């Protein structure tokens, strides 16, 4: 049976420490600046 996780438990899971060196993926856009930003 599928039981909905209590918010507290879910919140606990969200606090799971990231592995060392974890780099969140860069947003796909906007891209890199080639010259300078005005």
């Amino acid at each position, binding site marked *: 049976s599928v039981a909905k996780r209590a918010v507290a438990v879910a919140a606990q899971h969200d606090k799971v420490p990231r592995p060392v060196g974890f780099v969140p993926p860069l947003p*796909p856009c906007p*891209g890199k*600046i080639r*010259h300078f*930003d005005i």
Partner: protein
Amino acid sequence: VPAAPPAPLGCDDPESEAAAEAAVNYINGHSHHGYKFALNRIEDIRVVPQGPNNDIIFLELDLLETRCHILSPTPLDNCTVRSFAEHAVEGDCDVKLQRVDGILSVLASKCHSHADSSEDILKVCPDCPLLASLNNTEVLETVSAALNDYNSKTTGSYLRLLEIGRAQIQHHPGHAVATEFAVGATNCTAKEAKANVEACQLLPKDQSNFGFCTAVLTKLPSQDLQVDCQLYGHQVPAPDIPLLSRPGVTYAHPGQDTS
């Protein structure tokens, strides 16, 4: 289970860069005035699949003006992007492309260019000369004096003005007006023009010879005029490049606006 939709393209992915390159080449190839623009940043990309190997791509591009006039044969890669201190001009473009079997074609583009804000320039560079309006009296005087000066000294073809590309006025130290303008060779020598300048017309397209001039008129501390004109030599003309137009704003290509 239906196949998962493809991950959204990133703006720095090779496919996005290829689409942006096709878009910038199209924009420069169909621009009729002003300067060539180079890609500065891919702001956004959206791919709408139409079927197998058939996508519509919507691109949002941030371009920067280069020093190459649009009539210059210099390849875009060799065109220097104007620096911030030269009062840079930015182009914002929305481009719609189609990619069929990997072949990209531009369906529509709409661009608008605008100069960087004067406040931003002066904040970083208080003495930098700012862009002046192209119909500023001093600018028109400088261009006219420069072209007359060049035509009075040249042994070659009498040149006529095509369009003023840009102008800057330096108020201190001293007072100087710097201008850049595009010119076209006529069917007269400068000597013949002295006799009857009305007869001097731009060469027909199949013989056209365009060029580019820079001129600086210094008024203070003393009066001085420096002029330099370079003709590009005859090139095969692009489809239809109207000779005169209002520089500084890139127009949406009529009938091809992005819907």
